């Protein structure tokens, strides 16, 4: 009882010092247990001091906040459950109040619990009922990471009205989604709803976060996109030396010298490391220079996902603002007051002096976590079952003396309407489809697809300095582009542009890196070689050379390198296309052709075009270390007698590893040379074609860049105009069909039946009269119609005659325009008259038939058929 008394005293003290209460609470929440011990020693002076300090703190409330208050929300259209509480909810509120009272009595030094804030209709609602577990129909929202990312993109963040207190209002997720903005509690409620719906064991947490966390400030974080994936250095498994592995030759170098050298190297390295560390520390200091005076007091709400469900191996936090996951030991999370899901509410009874690092998330442990409702299917304490039960009861009685009524009480269903996100909104994601995130030395911009007409969806700009003034490089991601451009990487320092393409570019382009779009400059193009007939993988260009790499060609060509000479001066006026640069040297390399023996399979051939020299190098046989070589010198000379020398032994110099007989023959050499001559021509042609292709690709790229058309999937019913038109046409046809059917069902007897007293059976006489009336009426209608057409016809003819008369009278004085007018009128009138004539004749033809058809129909009418049968 001693403790209790003490507590009561403390309470009284707290009441006396109401001015300081807020500060106290803040301090206490940071370390609830610790403070309690301290407070006995706290003097008035200290409190006053604290008060003064606190009053100095300026709480800057952003203006944006005002935009999202209750006034802006139209509450009139909200459903009943929003505007009132059911009996059960009332009951729950009472329970919660009771709990809160007991809690404040037992732990007077802690802040009041965040239990039932007001909703948008000013109705208090218990926080757990605000969570509405929902599984979204989008597969992307099925996993926690993408789901959190979506929410962080979809909503824009509004800071809490008072950064040191939980908000007074907690709106429903539907309202939050509608206005696309909310504070951290709104964020985490929505995320929690979706995660629980997706099967995670997720909880909303009310606690304390760091300033960066509460303000969604990522400027001190490194952008995850800029981080390079860690290259996992694969330790190549060294096979254990085999039994007969040869011994390495003896090492005759001095071991001592090696060691000395090693030591020296290490010393240098260590020094460098040291310097680097110092530098880093300095930078870090610079960055973190600004410390937060409200550290540990800022209220934040986030989501806790416990391990167990959905194969989550370890419990973790998700910050709903940034969609990042943190370990439960992270420095950003400074304390937890309470947490809740859609079924229950738990209060943290553990000490948070060391942030959240020592917290144990075993919600079944009533010493650590005080629960509001008993009997929900919450994880039990990780002891044995029976003990658990017993202990629960004991604690119950001891700690709070909870009444039996609680035990049978479970959480009422959520008052929130079904959470819905329209496909349009889902695709647009961010409010207005645009979002900018500032990271440390980087800026990330996001757009919804199809928002930018060049298909840009994401841009990452990295900067050299912290102030983000000097751009280092830019990365732009594209979507739905017809030219399949996926990513554009611009390095501002080197001026190097690299474009990445998805498969499907008309020229099978994969990567294109360049500094300028001018031909004959430094550039590298990589291709999807399987999509190309010639198997080209990569083409590198410098002003003087062009190198191509191939793969999978039937002629086993793997590499071609062309050296160009300076362009001929006299043709300089012409364009590059018509005046190709002269080729000086072509080097071609080939893969091994397994069908040929190695010493007849050419590995490399060099055409020295200017010198008329051809060099061949053959593949090396597997048991040799040297390869055959052959060099042809093409000289067309004339011997002393004036005969043309066809072939002389010195025109072909060859080195053969294993001399063969037939290759010594001049005939063989001559034939080989002739063949090579042809192939040289071919190679030159191919190189020329490659140049042309480069020009073509560059032209194509320029056109594509200018046009930047976006493709629309045939499944995209909203954007695909063609399919939309088609669908609408189909709908129209259906509609017309429907109308026609309705017409067919028109009752021609209805007006006549209406004259008769309702509900009575027709007599025969009546039936006959009915029929006759109907027929007469129809006849009259037909006649009327004929008369109408006749009248119109006559009117038209008269008018025409009049006009003609007028024309003949005034023919002389008419201006050409009037004459034209008259002529056009005449032709139109003639047309009308002809049509009326046709109509009339058609009517005359059809009228009797229609009449007969109606008569027939009337005879067969089910209402009349019995009565008229006699007369037939």
């Amino acid at each position, binding site marked *: 009882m001693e403790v209790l008394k003490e507590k009561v005293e403390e309470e009284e003290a707290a009441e006396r010092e109401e001015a300081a209460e807020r500060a106290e609470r803040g301090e206490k929440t940071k370390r609830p247990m610790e403070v309690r011990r301290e407070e006995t020693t706290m003097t008035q002076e200290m409190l006053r001091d604290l008060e003064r300090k606190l009053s100095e703190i300026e709480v800057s409330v952003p203006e944006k906040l005002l935009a999202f208050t209750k006034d802006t929300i139209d509450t009139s259209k909200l459903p009943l459950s929003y505007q009132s509480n059911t009996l059960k909810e009332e009951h729950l509120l009472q329970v919660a109040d009771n709990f809160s009272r007991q809690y404040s009595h037992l732990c007077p030094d802690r802040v009041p619990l965040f239990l039932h804030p007001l909703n948008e209709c000013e109705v208090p609602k218990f926080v757990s009922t605000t969570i509405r577990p929902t599984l979204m129909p989008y597969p992307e929202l099925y996993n926690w990471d993408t789901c959190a990312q979506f929410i962080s993109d979809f909503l824009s963040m509004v800071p809490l009205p008072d950064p040191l207190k939980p908000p007074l209002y907690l709106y429903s997720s539907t309202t939050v989604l509608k206005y696309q903005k909310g504070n951290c509690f709104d964020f985490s409620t929505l995320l929690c709803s979706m995660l629980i719906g997706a099967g995670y064991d997720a909880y909303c947490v009310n606690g304390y976060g760091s300033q960066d966390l509460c303000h969604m400030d990522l400027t001190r974080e490194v952008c995850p996109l800029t981080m390079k994936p860690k290259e996992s250095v694969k330790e190549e498994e060294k096979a254990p030396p085999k*039994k007969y592995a040869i011994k390495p030759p003896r090492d005759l170098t001095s071991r001592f010298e090696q060691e000395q050298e090693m030591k020296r190297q290490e010393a240098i390295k260590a020094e460098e490391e040291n310097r680097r560390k110092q530098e880093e520390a300095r930078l870090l200091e610079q960055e973190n220079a600004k410390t937060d005076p409200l550290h540990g007091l800022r209220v934040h709400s986030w989501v806790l996902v416990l391990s167990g469900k959905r194969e989550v191996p370890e419990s973790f936090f998700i910050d709903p603002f940034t969609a990042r996951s943190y370990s439960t030991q992270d420095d950003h999370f400074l304390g937890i007051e309470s947490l809740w899901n859609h079924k229950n509410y738990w209060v943290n009874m553990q000490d948070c002096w060391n942030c959240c690092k020592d917290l144990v998330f075993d919600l079944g442990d009533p010493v650590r976590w005080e629960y509001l409702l008993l009997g929900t299917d919450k994880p039990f304490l990780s002891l044995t079952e029976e003990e658990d039960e017993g202990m629960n009861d004991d604690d119950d009685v001891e700690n709070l003396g909870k009444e039996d009524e609680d035990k049978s009480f479970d959480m009422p269903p959520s008052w929130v309407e079904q959470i819905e996100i329209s496909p349009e909104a889902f695709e647009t994601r961010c409010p207005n489809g645009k979002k900018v995130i500032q990271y440390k030395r980087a800026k990330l911009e996001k757009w919804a697809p199809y928002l930018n007409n060049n298909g840009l969806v994401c841009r990452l700009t990295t900067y050299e300095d912290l102030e983000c003034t000097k751009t280092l490089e830019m990365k732009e991601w594209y979507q739905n582009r017809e030219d399949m451009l996926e990513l554009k990487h611009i390095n501002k320092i080197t001026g190097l542009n690299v474009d990445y393409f998805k498969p499907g570019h008309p020229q099978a382009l994969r990567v294109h890196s360049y500094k300028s779009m001018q031909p004959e400059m430094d550039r590298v193009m990589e291709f999807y070689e399987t999509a190309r007939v010639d198997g080209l993988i990569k083409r590198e260009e410098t002003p003087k050379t062009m190198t191509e790499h191939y793969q999978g060609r039937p002629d086993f060509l793997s590499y071609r390198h062309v050296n160009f000479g300076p362009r001929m001066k006299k043709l300089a006026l012409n364009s590059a296309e018509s005046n190709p640069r002269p080729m000086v040297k072509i080097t071609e390399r080939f893969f091994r052709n397994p069908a040929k023996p190695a010493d007849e399979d050419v590995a490399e051939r060099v055409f020295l075009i200017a010198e008329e020299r051809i060099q061949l190098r053959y593949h090396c046989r597997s048991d040799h270390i040297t390869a055959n070589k052959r060099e042809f010198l093409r000289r067309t000379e004339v011997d002393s007698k004036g005969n043309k020398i066809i072939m002389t032994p010195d025109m072909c110099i060859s080195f053969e590893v294993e001399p063969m007989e037939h290759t010594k023959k001049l005939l063989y050499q001559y034939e080989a040379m002739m063949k090579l001559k042809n192939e040289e021509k071919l190679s030159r042609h191919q190189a020329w074609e490659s140049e042309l292709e480069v020009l073509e690709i560059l032209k194509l790229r320029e056109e594509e860049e200018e046009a930047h058309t976006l493709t629309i999937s045939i499944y995209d019913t909203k954007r695909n105009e063609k399919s939309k038109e088609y669908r609408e046409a189909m709908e129209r046809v259906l509609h017309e069909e429907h109308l026609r059917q309705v017409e067919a069902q028109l009752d021609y007897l209805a007006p006549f039946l209406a004259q008769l007293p309702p509900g009575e059976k027709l007599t025969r006489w009546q039936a006959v009269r009915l029929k006759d009336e109907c027929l007469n009426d129809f006849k009259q209608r037909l006649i009327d119609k004929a008369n109408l057409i006749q009248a119109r016809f006559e009117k038209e003819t008269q008018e025409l005659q009049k006009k003609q008369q007028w024309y003949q009278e005034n023919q002389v004085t008419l201006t050409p325009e009037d004459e034209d007018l008259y002529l056009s009128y005449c032709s139109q009138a003639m047309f009308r008259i002809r049509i009326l004539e046709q109509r009339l004749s058609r009517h005359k033809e059809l009228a009797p038939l229609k009449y007969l058809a109606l008569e027939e129909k009337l005879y067969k009418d089910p209402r009349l058929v019995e009565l008229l049968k006699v007369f037939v």
Partner: protein
Amino acid sequence: MNRLYDMEPRVMDDDMLKLAVGEQGPREEAGQLAKQEGILFKDVVSLQLDFQNILRIDNLWQFESLQKLQLDNNIIEKIEGLENLTRLVWLDLSFNNIEAIEGLDTLVNLEDLSLFNNRISKIDSLDALVKLQVLSLGNNHIGNMMNIIYLRRFKALRTLSLSGNPVAEDEDYKMFICAYLPDLVYLDFRRLDDHMKELAEMKHQYSIDELKHRENLMQARLEDEQARREELEEHKAAFVEQLNGTFLFDSMYAEDVEGSKLSHLPGVGELLEAYKDKFVIICLNIFEYGLKQQEKRKAELDTFMECVQEAIQENQEQGKLKIAKFEEKHLLSLNAIREESELSSIETKIVEYSEDITELFNVLMTLEMQLVEQLEETINMFERNIIDLVGLFVENVQSLMAQCRDLENHHHEKLLEIAINILEKIVKGEMDEDLPDDVRSLFVDKDTIVNAVGASHDIHLLKIDNREDELVTRVNSWCTHLLDKIHKDEIMRNRKRVKEINQYVDHVQSELDSLECGDLLD
């Protein structure tokens, strides 16, 4: 058939062939060169000898690389003299007087064979022509439809012509061929349509199914035999063939006359059964042990070979790298020397260059010597291990064989006992069972019976000894052969490499020399 018989038959002599080769050789500039140098018969790829009135094929043995040979429109009567033309792909012997297909057994690469307009009456002797695609046998005397079934074995055959034969007059001719040669595409220069094929198949389905069944059976038998042969081969490699059964035991009694006689004695039958069972168990032990040891030896050999290969590969890679580096430099320095104008600096450069060459030579040779040393060590180690393995194997087999011998001795003693008992019984006249006469003749006195049993015993022991000796000698000879081969291969490899290095260095040096000469002349 209006052959001009007034022309005298000609002989295929050297002149005729030379003329033909010359005429059909390269044209224009290349022709001039060819004339200068002459063409060797063994380089000729295609030869045409039509309308030459040749009676006999002859003198073609030099044309080793010939691929296409045309001998049509001659008066050849017999296919001969083509044995050496193994590269032949295309052979035309149409419009001759050939009566039988023969002499084609070595032409395994032949794809196109024309025997049009001859006097052939039977299709056979084509078994070696597994790649045959086109066969032209029109205008011959083939009369029996069954000849076509012979053609089923040519899986690649697509074109066949048989028109002008008596067979082709049969109304069922086309259908029959379609049915029996379903892979055929062209018959008598016309494409066979699918409809026709279906019809034919339906018509002859029954007989074809039977034929197929027979063929399948044959195939299965062949495969079986092959598998058995392979298995035996494997056992032989383990030196324990036919020890996995009663073979050895049976062979012991195969030549043993007395033994079989004695087995009729009462009580010996059971004894023999028990003996046989035990003996076979030991044989099986030997067999299994042998297979296991064989595997061990193989694994040993494989690792050794692998390691040696790896070492050689690595060494070669190093050598290649050195040469590649040298070549890079070599090109530069050659160019430099060529472009250098000052005589003194040329000389210094040449000296420098030849120093490089010597260094390359030294480096390569050092590498090679290093490899030789390493390999020698490895080979010695392997030799030791393999000899140990073989020794162990022999030892164990010998101990097992000794068990066999013990068994035999044991059996012998028992047999002798029984025999003497019976002899005693016979002598006492107590023998009530009937014995065959030849067996009874052994029991005249003690010496005879003891001798008979002894002889049987000796034969058995001899057999066991022989088997043992065979195994031991064979495994030892295998071991020595293997080691010899390894040593020899290594020496060969070394010589080849040294030769290669020398050749290369000589070549580089000569290049330099020629450059020098050229410079001096300039």
